[in-house]
């Protein structure tokens, strides 16, 4: 039984210089030969792996476009199968037509992430690398892309391997301890043992921290803009988005719904929501909007609280100020007008003075956002956990090793501590896919199927 041969445009949609149609599977070269005619007259089937031919895509003797065909023979290809990549000119229509030709010659359209899935199943990628490719496909900004690339290149797997190597050394010592009754075992005296456990714990902890930081980079920061009606929230939002998203009027309470928008500021993606102004209101429609706003305030990672300094603060302002936490930046708007508000209320808080209307102070705001959000910087070449699945594994590993440490300190015998160390090890092996569980396969492949 042989799996079907699949094809897809594997460059991003849009007007690029070139577009690549990738064909993968047993029949890939045959199908490519039906779709592509080399100017040299040579059949692709006669070519060795890693060679290229220049020619044209042909359908019913009609030439679609000039193309370069790159031939990879199994197992030396991305997917581990026979692969042909046809590079055509990058127009949307040209690429689509070329793909049509390939499909009409016997290939099936590749599902989302199918090439990666095949690469994983053919043993070309480990699980962590396969997952990272899915992240590359969906990366929202440059840093996210870089992190995912690093993971694909195996940084994460290597980091985990270093940690597991430590654990395996411990395991080996415990084995000797168990099997050789009369031997002195090196590394298992309590201080040394403890030091090793602490080192492992520390490394896993570091790794765990990368998830939250990485998540910020990948998924963006949920940011809400709050403030009393008509202090300039929507204007600020529009400045950040550089487009008119919210309705901006002078009538207090215009924005009744939470407006979502995504903006990238200095490599940080903010998922912005403009909220209805916070004030006591009797208007039922607006009331629903206000409730939602307060909820947002509590759920957001970043709050931009906007105040109009051209008017004195009232009770609503004071209420809002006291509701703000560490995740808030106080944006003092309308600094183009005379400031009359009581600034002492903001003591000890992050404040930025801007004028949303004439764009002043915006750069400073960006700086504050970066400071508030990025408590932990990711350099882009370190190992980062990139999926919830990976984080769960790392968390289990961390908890097990922490408990092992506790047990050892309590004075329990090493055979029992070993149970916890084994737990830690298996969680880490599961992370990189070295240990197979049903769930891993299910979960990861579920992702492949709905991948972008």
């Amino acid at each position, binding site marked *: 039984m042989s799996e079907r041969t699949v094809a897809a445009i594997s460059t991003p949609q849009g007007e690029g210089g070139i577009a690549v149609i990738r064909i993968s599977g047993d029949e890939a070269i045959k199908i490519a030969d039906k779709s592509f005619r080399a100017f040299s007259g040579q059949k692709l089937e006669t070519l060795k792996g890693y060679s290229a031919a220049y020619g044209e895509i042909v359908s019913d003797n009609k030439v679609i476009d000039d193309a370069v065909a790159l031939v990879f023979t199994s197992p030396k290809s991305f997917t581990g199968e026979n692969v042909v990549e046809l590079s055509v000119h990058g127009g949307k229509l040209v690429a689509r037509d070329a793909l049509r030709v390939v499909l009409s010659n016997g290939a099936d359209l590749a599902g989302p992430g199918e090439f990666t899935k095949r690469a994983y*199943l053919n043993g070309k990628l*480990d699980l962590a690398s396969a997952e990272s490719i899915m992240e590359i496909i969906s990366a929202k900004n440059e840093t996210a892309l870089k992190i995912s690339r690093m993971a694909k290149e195996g940084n994460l797997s290597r980091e985990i391997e270093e940690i597991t190597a430590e654990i395996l050394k411990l395991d080996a010592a415990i084995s000797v301890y*168990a*099997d050789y009754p009369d031997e002195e075992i090196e590394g298992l005296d309590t201080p040394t043992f403890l030091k090793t456990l602490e080192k492992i714990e520390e490394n896993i902890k570091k790794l765990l921290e990368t998830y939250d930081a990485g998540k910020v980079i990948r998924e963006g920061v949920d940011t809400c803009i709050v403030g009393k009606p008509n202090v300039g929230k929507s204007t600020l939002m529009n400045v950040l988005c550089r487009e008119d998203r919210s309705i901006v009027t002078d009538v207090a309470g215009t924005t009744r719904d939470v407006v979502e928008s995504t903006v990238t500021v200095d490599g940080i993606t903010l998922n912005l929501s403009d909220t209805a102004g916070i004030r006591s209101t009797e208007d039922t429609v607006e009331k629903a909007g206000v409730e939602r706003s307060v909820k947002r305030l509590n759920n957001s990672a970043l709050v931009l609280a906007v105040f109009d300094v051209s008017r004195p603060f009232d009770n609503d302002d004071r209420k809002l100020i006291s509701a703000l936490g560490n995740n808030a930046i106080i944006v003092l708007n309308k600094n183009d007008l005379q400031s009359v508000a009581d600034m002492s209320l903001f003591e000890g808080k992050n404040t930025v003075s801007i004028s949303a209307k004439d764009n002043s102070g915006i750069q400073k705001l960006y700086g504050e956002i970066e400071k508030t959000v990025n408590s932990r910087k990711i350099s882009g070449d370190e190992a980062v956990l990139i999926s919830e699945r990976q984080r769960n594994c790392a968390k289990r590993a961390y908890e097990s090793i922490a408990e092992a440490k506790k047990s050892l300190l309590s004075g329990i015998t090493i055979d*029992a501590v070993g149970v*916890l160390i084994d*737990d830690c090890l298996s969680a880490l092996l599961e992370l990189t*896919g070295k240990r197979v569980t049903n769930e891993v*396969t299910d979960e990861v492949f579920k992702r492949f199927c709905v991948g972008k």
Partner: protein
Amino acid sequence: MNIPEYKADNYDVAVIGGGHAGIEAALVAARLGLKTIMFTITLDWVGNMPCNPSIGGTAKGHLVRELDALGGEMGKAADKNTLQSRMLNRGKGPAVYSLRAQIDRRRYSEYMKHTVELQKGLDVKQAEIVSVEKRENIWHLITSLGADFTSKTVIFATGTFLGGRVYVGEVNYEAGPDGLFPATKLSQSLKNLGIPLRRFKTGTPARVLKSSIDFSELELQEGDQKTVPFSFSTKEKPQNKVVCHIAYTNDDTKKVILDNIHRSPLYAGVIEGVGPRYCPSIEDKIVRFADKKRHQLFIEPCGENTEEMYLQGMSSSLPEEVQIKFYHTIKGLENVKVMRNAYAIEYDCIDPTALKASLEFKDFEGLFGAGQFNGSSGYEEAAAQGLIAGINAAKKVKGEPPLILSRASSYIGTLIDDLVTKGCSDPYRMMTSRSEYRLLLRQDNADDRLMPIGYELGLISEEEYNEFTEKKRLKELEIARINQTYIAPGEEINEMLSSMGTTPLSTGVCLADLIKRPQLSYESLAPFDKERPILPEDVCEKAEIEIKYEGYIVRQQSQINETLRLENKKIPEDLNYDDVYGLRLEAKEKLNKIKPSNIGQASRISGVSPSDISVLLIYLKK
């Protein structure tokens, strides 16, 4: 020369070999009601111990207790012939407690010989089997004297006799262990059947005269004051009748060996067989662990009625004169008289991946293997396989499904799974580290784990089983009582707690929580536990371990449950892996050869990667 054959008897089960594997196989088959015969080359040495005069040790002790819970004979025989008993690893934690006993070699053999002779339904026959072949759907076993026995099933338990060759320096000759006859013709017959054989080797140290040892120079090693028997049915505690001693090699020993290493048949390349990694010869130890200053050796009596002493840790295949020379370098052995020389023995065995988990050959219905024949090493490993092969041969004849013990149930299950799934590249020795479930597979609870199976098989008597269930009931009652008993703070108990280095009480606390403190024990809390009933020692021990290690045991149980999910994913027996798209070539070959019965087993095969397993999982879902 063609020997005229004569028609001999017909059996259900025929066992070739009367060593530790053969005995258990033959006894159990007969006890399960099958007409059984056991062949041995020398009836004088049924159940011989050609190497260590001891049974048990790390992991091996576990095997013996498990064997006993399934109705095996080894534990009972060891208890009756114990010279000295020790629980190893006391103080290291219950998962690694291991029982080991010095055994009176000759008496042990006598006990076993008599036991097989008395067994109803079992014939014992001194004969060399020269050929095994299938004719008209029944296996024929031909002896060297021309007797043609027939049997529905055959169990190979040939040990080091099969193609045995002894090496001492430049000298080598065909022989079995202890100067007995080897089985020289059976190997060819197996090859004719199409069973590939390979060579393994093992070795044994010299036996020396007791009166020639200067014990004043040696460390003394005594037995435990409180001994524990192997068998759950043994009522009297084994008595310590002898002591052992410890000696050490030194730089001179090393020098003698290194100066003569070229005379070792192993280093000269004469021996092709692979030796046991975990039981190396002294020359091997000196070469491989070159920076180690000294190596320990144990001097163990071979029996009460003999002056022969065994030098554990000093096996060698160097020439006899070199042996004498290096033994003489050891403090206390300067004038030692070597009664029997050390030697290496090379023998034929199979690749155990040719077997199913039932120990039946995949390709030869009715043929089973056990012990060194399967590539293992050690009496206990042999006995464990013998028992399982015997049970499954009997089940085969009765048309019942085989008994397959999981890794999570026992060391026996782990041993067999390792052999048939991973195979072995050197003689396989059981170790506690081979089990991923050490804390659950303890020697104290072998009965909890396996006696219900033994009982159901009909190998555990009603009386034994009742005793087991009663003890289990008592243990559960005691655990419940401990969990409901509260200890009030008081001067006396707080004084004790402080002296043990643990926090004194300020409020009442559950007795179970006190037992959980590593510094305290069930026994140390006795004076404060006024309602404590008088219970058998083993019941107390189990209750204590189960309380003390509860959290860890629960955790290990969940590890087992996790892996069980993969074990429960069955793979159809007729699956042709060539049809599974995406498997790498190496994985296809391995899987087609091993034919794992489930995904869990498949994932343990070396050369099968996690992505191969994913491919399989996806394939099986289709």
